[in-house]
C-alpha cells in the first residue's frame, strides 16, 4: 500500500540529501574532488582556510550571534508568557506577533536596517531636535563589527517562532491550574509561572530552540543585510568562496562548510552546558521559596521587551513601504517631501518572472510536503502506531546548518549532471518545508477527536471515505494553515535557491538579497515589500477560505 511507504519516503527524503551533502563537503574539504582535479587527500584546503584573514573573528561572530540571538528571543518569549494575564494588551500583542512569523527573514532584516541606519527613520525622528544632526552621521550602526544589528534582526524574527511553538506546547501543561495552585500557596502570579510552568515548558520547546541556534549561527541572508562585512560571518564568507569564479576556492569553501558545522555544533554544546547551569540555578531559586521579590520587574519586562521587538518589526515593514513610494527625501525630514509611483513602475516589469518562480517553487514544494505529511499521518492513524522516535529526524534539516550540507548537495547534483532547474530547487525547498508542514499537520491530527473516526467507521464508511469526507473537511482550516506555513517557509528560502539554482533561477528573495549590496533603498523597499506580501496572501486564504466555505456551519467557526 502506498501509505505505508510515506514515512519511509519522508525519512529518506530528509536524511539522504543531508548525509550526501555533508559527505560531499567533507571529501573536498580534504582535497578530494576529482572533477576539479583534487585526486588525493590533503590538508591544503584547511591550510588555506586558516590562512584567511579574519577567519577566527568570523567564526566567533557566528557563534556568539547565534547564541545571543537565541538566548534573547527565548528570554523575551518566556518573560511575556509569564506576565500574560489574558488582558486586552496581551491578546493584542499575540495577534500582532503571529503575522510576523510569515514575514521572510530578509524582509524583516531590511525593515530593521532602514529603521536604525544613520539616515534611517529613528535618526530622522530624533534629528535635528535631539541629536543636532543636520546630515546623516558617519556611524556604522547597520553591519556593525560586533554583529549587534545582526542579533537584533534575528531576535525580531525568532520571537514569533518560539512564541508560537510555546503556545502550541502550553495547553498540555495546564498552566492556569498550576499557577492557581502556586498562587494559593502565596506566590505572586508572574513568579508562580516562572517557578511552576517554565521548568516544564522548556523541555517541550527544546528542539525548536536548537533549530533557532543552528539557524542563527549559520544564517546567510540576514547576515548579508545586517551582519558585519570585514570580515563577514563565517556562513557569508563560505558563500563568497563558493561563488568565486576561481573553482579552486571550492576546496576552501568545503573546509569552511565543515568548520561551520563545527561552529554550530559548538554553539549547541555550549547551549547544552548553559541549560544545565540554568536548570541548577532555577532549582535553587525555586527551592528558596521566594514569593514576591522581583514580581513587578518581571511583569513589566514581560510586556516591554516583546512590545519593543514587535513594534520594531512592524515599523520596519512600514518603513519599507514608505521607501518604496518615496520621492525626494531630505535627511532630517521624518517623511519624504514627495511620494511617487515611479519606483514601483520601474521595478514592476522585472517583477513578474521572479514572482512566478517564487510561487511555482513554493506551491510545488508545499503541495508535495503536504501530500507526504498527510499520507504519513494517515498511515499512523490506520496502523494505530505512534512513531515518536522518528520525530527528531524531522528536525535534522533544521539543526544541521544549511550551508554545511547544501553545498555538498550542489556538488552531488553537478556530479549527477542534474541541471539547476525549478524542479531541483523545489526538491531543495522540500527539505525545509516538509518539517514545518509535518509538525503543523501532526498537531492538528493529534487534536482531532478519535470518536469522529470511530463513529464514521461504525456507520460503515471505508477508511478512504473517512479521510476524504470527514477528516479532511473537518481539518480544512488547520490543513490550509499548514499549507500557508509551508508557502511562507519556501518563499523565504535564500540559500537553497541560490545554490541549487546556480544563480540562474531568480525568486523575489534572491533578488531582494542581491540588492542589499547596492543600497538603493527605494528599489529594495519595493522588492522587500513584495517578498513580505507574498506569504501573507497564503495566510489570508488560509483564514478566509474556511470562513467562506463553512459560513453556514457554526460548529466549524471557532475550531482551530
Amino acid at each position, binding site marked *: 500500500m502506498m501509505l505505508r511507504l510515506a514515512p519511509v519516503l519522508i525519512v529518506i527524503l530528509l536524511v539522504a540529501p543531508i548525509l550526501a551533502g555533508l559527505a560531499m563537503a567533507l571529501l573536498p574539504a580534504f582535497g578530494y574532488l576529482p572533477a576539479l582535479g583534487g585526486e588525493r587527500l590533503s590538508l591544503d584546503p584547511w591550510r588555506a582556510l586558516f590562512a584567511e584573514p579574519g577567519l577566527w573573528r568570523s567564526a566567533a561572530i557566528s557563534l556568539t550571534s547565534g547564541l545571543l540571538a537565541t538566548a534573547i528571543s527565548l528570554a523575551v518569549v518566556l518573560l511575556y508568557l509569564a506576565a500574560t494575564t489574558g488582558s486586552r494588551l496581551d491578546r493584542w500583542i499575540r495577534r500582532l506577533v503571529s503575522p510576523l512569523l510569515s514575514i521572510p527573514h530578509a524582509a524583516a532584516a531590511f525593515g530593521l536596517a532602514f529603521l536604525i541606519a544613520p539616515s534611517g527613520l529613528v535618526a530622522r525622528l530624533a534629528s535635528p531636535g535631539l541629536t543636532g544632526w543636520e546630515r546623516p552621521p558617519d556611524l556604522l550602526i547597520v553591519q556593525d563589527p560586533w554583529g549587534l544589528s545582526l542579533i537584533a534582526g534575528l531576535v525580531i524574527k525568532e520571537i514569533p517562532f518560539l512564541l508560537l511553538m510555546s503556545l502550541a506546547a502550553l495547553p498540555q501543561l495546564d498552566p492556569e491550574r498550576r499557577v492557581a495552585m502556586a498562587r494559593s500557596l502565596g506566590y505572586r502570579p508572574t513568579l508562580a509561572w516562572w517557578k511552576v510552568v517554565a521548568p516544564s515548558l522548556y523541555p517541550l520547546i527544546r528542539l525548536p530552540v536548537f533549530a533557532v541556534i543552528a539557524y542563527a549561527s549559520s544564517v546567510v541572508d540576514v547576515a548579508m543585510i545586517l551582519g558585519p562585512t570585514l570580515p563577514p560571518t563565517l556562513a557569508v564568507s563560505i558563500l563568497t568562496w563558493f561563488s568565486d569564479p576561481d573553482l579552486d576556492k571550492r576546496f576552501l569553501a568545503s573546509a569552511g562548510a565543515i568548520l561551520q558545522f563545527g561552529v554550530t555544533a559548538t554553539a549547541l554544546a555550549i547551549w547544552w552546558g548553559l541549560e544545565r547551569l540554568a536548570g541548577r540555578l532555577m532549582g535553587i531559586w525555586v527551592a528558596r521559596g521566594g514569593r514576591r521579590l522581583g514580581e513587578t520587574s518581571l511583569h513589566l519586562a514581560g510586556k516591554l521587551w516583546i512590545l519593543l521587538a514587535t513594534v520594531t518589526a512592524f515599523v520596519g515593514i512600514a518603513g519599507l513601504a514608505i521607501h518604496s513610494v518615496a520621492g525626494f527625501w531630505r535627511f532630517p525630514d521624518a517623511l519624504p517631501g514627495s511620494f511617487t509611483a515611479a519606483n514601483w513602475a520601474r521595478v514592476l516589469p522585472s517583477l513578474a518572472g521572479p514572482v512566478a518562480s517564487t510561487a511555482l517553487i513554493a506551491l510545488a514544494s508545499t503541495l508535495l510536503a503536504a501530500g507526504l505529511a498527510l499520507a504519513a499521518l494517515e498511515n499512523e492513524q490506520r496502523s494505530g502506531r505512534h512513531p515518536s522516535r522518528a520525530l527528531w529526524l524531522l528536525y535534522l534539516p533544521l539543526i544541521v546548518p544549511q550551508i554545511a550540507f547544501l553545498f555538498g548537495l550542489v556538488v552531488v547534483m553537478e556530479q549527477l549532471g542534474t541541471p539547476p532547474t525549478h524542479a531541483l530547487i523545489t526538491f531543495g525547498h522540500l527539505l525545509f518545508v516538509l518539517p514545518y508542514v509535518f509538525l503543523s499537520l501532526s498537531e492538528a491530527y493529534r487534536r482531532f477527536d478519535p470518536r469522529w473516526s*470511530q463513529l464514521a*467507521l461504525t456507520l460503515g464508511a471505508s477508511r478512504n471515505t473517512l479521510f476524504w469526507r470527514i477528516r479532511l473537511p*473537518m481539518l480544512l482550516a488547520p490543513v490550509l494553515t499548514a499549507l500557508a506555513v509551508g508557502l511562507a517557509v519556501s518563499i523565504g528560502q535564500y540559500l537553497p535557491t541560490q545554490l541549487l539554482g546556480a544563480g540562474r533561477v531568480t525568486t523575489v528573495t534572491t533578488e531582494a538579497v542581491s540588492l542589499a549590496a547596492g543600497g538603493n533603498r527605494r528599489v529594495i523597499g519595493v522588492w522587500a515589500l513584495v517578498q513580505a506580501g507574498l506569504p501573507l496572501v497564503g495566510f489570508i486564504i488560509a483564514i478566509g477560505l474556511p470562513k467562506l466555505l463553512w459560513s*453556514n456551519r*457554526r460548529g466549524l467557526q471557532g475550531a482551530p
Partner: protein
Amino acid sequence: MNAPHHLELRDICIRLDDQPLVELEAEIGPGEVLTVMGPSGSGKSTLLAYLAGFLAPEFRASGQVLLDGRDISALPAERRGVGLLFQDPLLFPHLSVAGNLRFGMPRATADKGARVEQALANIGLVGFGNRDPATLSGGQKARVALMRLLLSAPCAVLLDEPFSKLDTHLRHEMRRLVFDRLHEAGLPSLLVTHDREDAEDAGGRVIELSH
C-alpha cells in the same frame, strides 16, 4: 432493516499486561438490551472498543463475537455492522442535518431523500434537513444521532452512556425513544452505563463488572 439479529459473546476475555481486565459471556437476542454496569476503570469502555473494533494495541483479547452466527472479531470496524451511540451526539459539523443522516446509509439504498424525510418526520424535525447541526438543541441533536445510527442499518448496536450528558427531563424521554426504536428494529444492543436508572429503563438483563 427489520430482519431480527442476534449477538453472542462467547468467552470474551480482554487482558492488559496479561492481567484479565474484562471477562464476559452473554447472548443478546433481537430487540434485547443487555446492560453492562461498573465503576470507571472497570473496563467498560475497553469492552465497547473491542466489540466495535477499536481496541488499542496494548490490549489482548480472546473469545468470539458472533453476529448472526458469524464471527466478526477479526473484521475491521467498518465491516462489522455494529453501530455506536456515544455520550455526545457527534453530528458531523461540516454536513447538514440531512447530510449527517445520509452519511451512514448503505450506498445501494434506494430513495435516500425520501428516507431522510421520513426519518426527520419520525423524530418531529420535518423541514430540518438543510439546517446546520450546530443550531439544533441538545435533544434534537440526540434524536438526529439516533436516526443516523438506525439509517445506517446496523445488525447490532453499542450504547456508550448515551444519556449521561442530557438534562434530567430529556433523559427519560430519550431513553424511551432509543429503546423503543432499537426494539422495533429488532436490534440486539449492549448498553454500558453507571446510571442504575438507565439499566432499569432498558429493561433487559444487567451484568455488573467489578474491578
